[in-house]
């Protein structure tokens, strides 16, 4: 066996990871709708994204044999795109926090005030 | 050549319009040249076409848009009638306006939209299809608005807003009517009329109502007339345009087109929608007169008078009898000439003597005789004093009423005439008989007075010479004989 050998996923793996992916997407959707802190929403996006990718990966691994490379390539592209978006999003959150002093969109709940001692 | 001429007529006002927008405020001369040149050229072209049409030529120009949507310019007799009227009056109004405004600011805009307005009217007159009519109708609405708002003071802006408030829903109604109809019948070409196919009668009635709603605002049918008196806030040339050259005429013209070229009088009768329209027109005639009676401002009174007078044409169209239609078509011209005279004069009183209200007219006849004579001719014509223009119209209308089996029209006409007299006679009394106040006033403005005199003369002529084949009446007679009520 050499390292260059791509190895075959177990027969049950697609099912397991597809369901896992489905759960992650659901969790992420919940988070996206329920969470108000912007950084946590970014996390929720990433959870949804990776759930989708896992689901896609499971699709690629269906049918036994070597996993279909096309979804793998698409997933890599997707991961990079998601990273780009996340980077822009978190920078936006930070810039917003700097200028407004909060990381919540106006009209969507309030952040509890920082403790007194924080006022340096 | 046949396609070129109608387009040239259109462009003769469109090009000055667009060019004027780009002119500097200071280039009065160039602007005036453009404007006058355009109107003279247009008149010349129309005369040329008139002669050619009389010789049997046909003109048609077509611009294809998307499938099923094309602009067709075509000259039939009715179109020529309206076209000639608006071209003549445009020329006169141009002269008047140039004198009226002198070197006031914002004139590029004014003359630009003014020409655009006339271009729209020209297109409207020449429209050979329903959709072309719609397009120019809307263009007319849009180009009129800045004119109404021209003074940009509070009443003008309010008037302009009011105008849009009435005109745009009307446009929407017209649009729905046109598309509803055409989606069932295909493009409607005026000459052929629409083939209603399997459209249900109620749908047809609804479409008819929408049409009347659409054009009725411009024709100032009660209760859609509210914008017109308010628009009196605009300067006198604009009033002249609204009342005589373009807008309300377009509405009345639209009613004729809808009844005779889209539905056809038989269908209108069969659907039973003619009589209600005639009733509405009659109510408008009377109500307009009554309201005119209550006005103290000259222009307001004239405006309500228009409400009343234009509905003569609507009434004529709704009666769908040949004689009535002859009267209506003739009135299209007559009313235009008379009303523009009155507005010219009202503008002169305002401009040269600062008189806006009726009680300011006392003794004005001596101080401003030319103007006052012209005014009097117009007013008497409106009342229908034989043999003036108004009398001819009313005569034919009355005959038409009898012909159509609606003798009550006579009563309407009689009532209207009494009311006309009631609101015009006091003015004449004040002009000529009432002891003069010391109000200043002179007529040293030939640019203002001459157009008024010309239109007054013309309105006198069309009445006196009504029997001539070249008079509007003769023309209308010809139209009806040749084309309509086949």
């Amino acid at each position, binding site marked *: 066996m050499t390292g260059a050998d791509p190895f075959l996923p177990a027969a049950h793996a697609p099912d397991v990871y597809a369901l896992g992916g489905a759960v992650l*997407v659901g969790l992420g959707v919940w988070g*996206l709708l329920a969470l108000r802190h*912007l950084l946590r*929403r970014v996390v929720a*996006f990433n959870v949804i*994204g990776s759930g*989708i990718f896992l689901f*896609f990966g499971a*699709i690629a691994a269906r049918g036994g044999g070597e996993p279909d490379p*096309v*979804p793998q390539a*698409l997933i890599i*592209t*997707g991961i990079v*795109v998601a990273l*780009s*978006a996340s980077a*822009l*999003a978190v920078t*936006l*959150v930070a*810039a*917003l926090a700097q*200028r*407004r002093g909060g990381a919540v*969109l106006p009209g969507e709940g309030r952040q509890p005030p920082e403790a007194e001692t924080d006022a340096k | 050549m046949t396609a070129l001429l109608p387009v040239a007529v259109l462009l003769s006002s469109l090009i000055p319009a667009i060019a004027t*927008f780009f002119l500097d405020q200071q280039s009065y001369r160039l602007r005036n040249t453009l404007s006058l040149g355009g109107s003279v050229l247009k008149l010349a072209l129309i005369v040329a076409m008139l002669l050619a049409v009389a010789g049997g030529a046909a003109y048609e120009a077509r*611009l294809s*848009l*998307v*499938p*099923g*949507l094309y*602009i067709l310019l075509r000259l039939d007799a009715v179109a020529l009638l309206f076209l000639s009227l608006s071209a003549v009056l445009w020329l006169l109004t141009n002269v008047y306006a140039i004198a009226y405004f002198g070197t006031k600011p*914002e004139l590029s*805009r004014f003359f630009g939209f003014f020409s655009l307005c006339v271009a729209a009217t020209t297109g409207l007159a020449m429209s050979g299809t329903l*959709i072309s009519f*719609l*397009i120019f109708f*809307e*263009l007319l609405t*849009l180009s009129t608005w*800045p004119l109404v*708002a021209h*003074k*940009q003071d509070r009443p003008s*802006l309010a008037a302009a*807003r009011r105008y*849009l408030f009435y005109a*745009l829903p009307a*446009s*929407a*109604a017209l*649009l*729905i009517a046109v*598309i*509803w109809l*055409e*989606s069932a019948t*295909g493009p409607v070409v005026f000459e052929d009329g629409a083939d209603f196919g399997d459209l249900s009668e109620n749908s047809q009635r609804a479409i008819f109502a929408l049409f009347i709603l659409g054009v009725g605002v411009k024709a100032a049918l009660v209760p859609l007339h509210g914008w017109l008196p308010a628009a009196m806030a605009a300067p006198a040339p604009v009033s002249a345009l609204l009342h005589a050259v373009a807008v309300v005429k377009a509405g009345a013209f639209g009613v004729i087109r809808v009844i005779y070229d889209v539905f056809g009088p038989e269908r209108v009768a069969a659907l039973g929608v003619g009589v209600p329209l005639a009733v509405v027109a009659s109510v408008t005639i009377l109500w307009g007169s009554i309201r005119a009676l209550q006005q103290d401002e000259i222009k307001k009174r004239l405006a309500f008078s228009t409400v009343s007078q234009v509905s003569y044409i609507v009434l004529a169209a709704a009666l769908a009898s040949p004689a009535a239609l002859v009267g209506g078509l003739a009135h299209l011209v007559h009313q235009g000439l008379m009303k523009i005279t009155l507005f010219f004069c009202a503008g002169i009183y305002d401009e040269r003597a600062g008189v806006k209200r009726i009680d300011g007219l006392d003794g004005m006849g001596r101080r401003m005789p030319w103007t006052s004579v012209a005014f009097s001719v117009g007013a008497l014509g409106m009342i229908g004093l034989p043999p003036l223009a108004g009398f001819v119209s009313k005569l034919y209308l009355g005959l038409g009423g009898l012909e159509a089996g609606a003798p009550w029209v006579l009563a309407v006409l009689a009532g209207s005439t009494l009311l006309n007299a009631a609101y015009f006679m006091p003015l004449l009394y004040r002009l000529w008989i009432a002891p003069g106040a010391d109000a200043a006033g002179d007529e040293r403005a030939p640019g203002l007075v001459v157009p008024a005199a010309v239109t007054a003369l013309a309105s006198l002529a069309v009445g006196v010479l009504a029997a001539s084949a070249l008079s509007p009446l003769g023309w209308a007679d010809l139209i009806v004989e040749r084309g309509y009520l086949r």
Partner: protein
Amino acid sequence: MSALVFLLALPLVAALAALVAPRGAPALTLISAAAGVGAALRLAQTVAQGGVQEIALAGWAPPLGITVAADGLAVAFLLMTALVMLAVALAARAELAPERAGARVAFGFWPIALLLWGSLNAVFLSRDLFNLYVGIELLTLAAVALVALSGKAGALVAAMRYMIFALAGSLLYLLGVVLVYGAHGTLDVGLLADRTVADPDALALALMTAGLAAKTALFPFHVWLPPAHAGAPAPASAMLSGLVPKASFVILIRLWFEAMPDQAGSGALLLLGLMGAAAVIWGSLRALSQPRLKLIVAYSTVAQLGYMFLIFPLAGGDGAAQPWAAGAWTGGMFQALSHGLAKAAMFLCAGLWIIAAGGDRLADLRGLARPMPMTAMAFGLAAVTLMGLPPSGGFTAKYLMMTAAFASGQWGWALVLAGGGLLAAAYLYRPMAEVFARDCPITPQPIPRAWQLVPLALAVAAIMLGLISAPPFDLLQVGRPEAAEEGL
């Protein structure tokens, strides 16, 4: 090299160059936009004569590779985009010069704008669902950057809100794409049209549609749009409002009319139409109560986008084979195109007025028509298009769609179209009345005529789209799915 490849690569090459040599960026953008207009015209000519131009990129046909294709729809949008870009490049040269906008904006705007253009071209041309995903992500990131460009707190909030919607939309779309691949092993629009229908197709289409609707700001996903479009500098707003929503809309068209027309049930089509109608009404009503010009114009975008969705009930599903479908579909496209031109013109007008008067509250605009008649004219003409009055492109759109509405017996949509026009007149009247007021309480900054010509040219183009509508109509028919007999 074909005009198609040129249009794909040009904005990207220009963007890279603009990044390396920022000083030359404005000129570069201008030249590229002009070249883009030329190439788009050339391509339009080719397509009109030779039919759909299709290229398998990298030389691999689907399902392995990605195809790009210039059909009439794509070319029309490419051309409109290039025109708007040209105008934006001209306007931004003046408005976003370093001394006016600061070094940051003067550096960033150009490459970002070019990337946005590049992504639009890519989306309009692509035939691959995943490639479209990458394209709209590029679009989203560039658009977010444009929204945030001003750096003000309000703009950042708007950018954040936009980003949340856009990213959520992207993910939903991506999920649908994944399901499509899972069911059919291909992502090519053409191949999908011939697929054997699978059960999850409906779910996939629903997910993709929901995602794209969020990106297109379809009611009720529109809340992000007005602040985002109103908060950016005017040239950016022009692109955001005039161009950006069109990309996701085009993908929706590709999905519903080309890839999966079989999934278009009447209920779903009705729902899309109702959402569009709600957008028309709600967007217009909100526009009526806005205190600032840019907000009015932005809410108007919500309303105007709504019209485009009426084509789903009018031309989608079974209706696609009906004689009126061609008209309805093309009407929707006319709406998208003329709105793009007119809306860009409006935002550019707003930008000039803001420079002149220092703000865009309605009271600030008072009397500006006198010192800036050409801008007022441009705004007026653009307004004519948005109201759908003849002879503008907006009128052609409305005419075609209304005709289809009556012909198909769905006259309710016609009422929406007519009512929307009235509401548009009402909300656009407010700024117009101020602009045309007699007194101008301030002494406005003088604006050169050349600047004013730019929005005017765009607005005139929007009008011309109605006046010269036969060539674009014919162009749009090239490659149109379900080519039914021509309209009525």
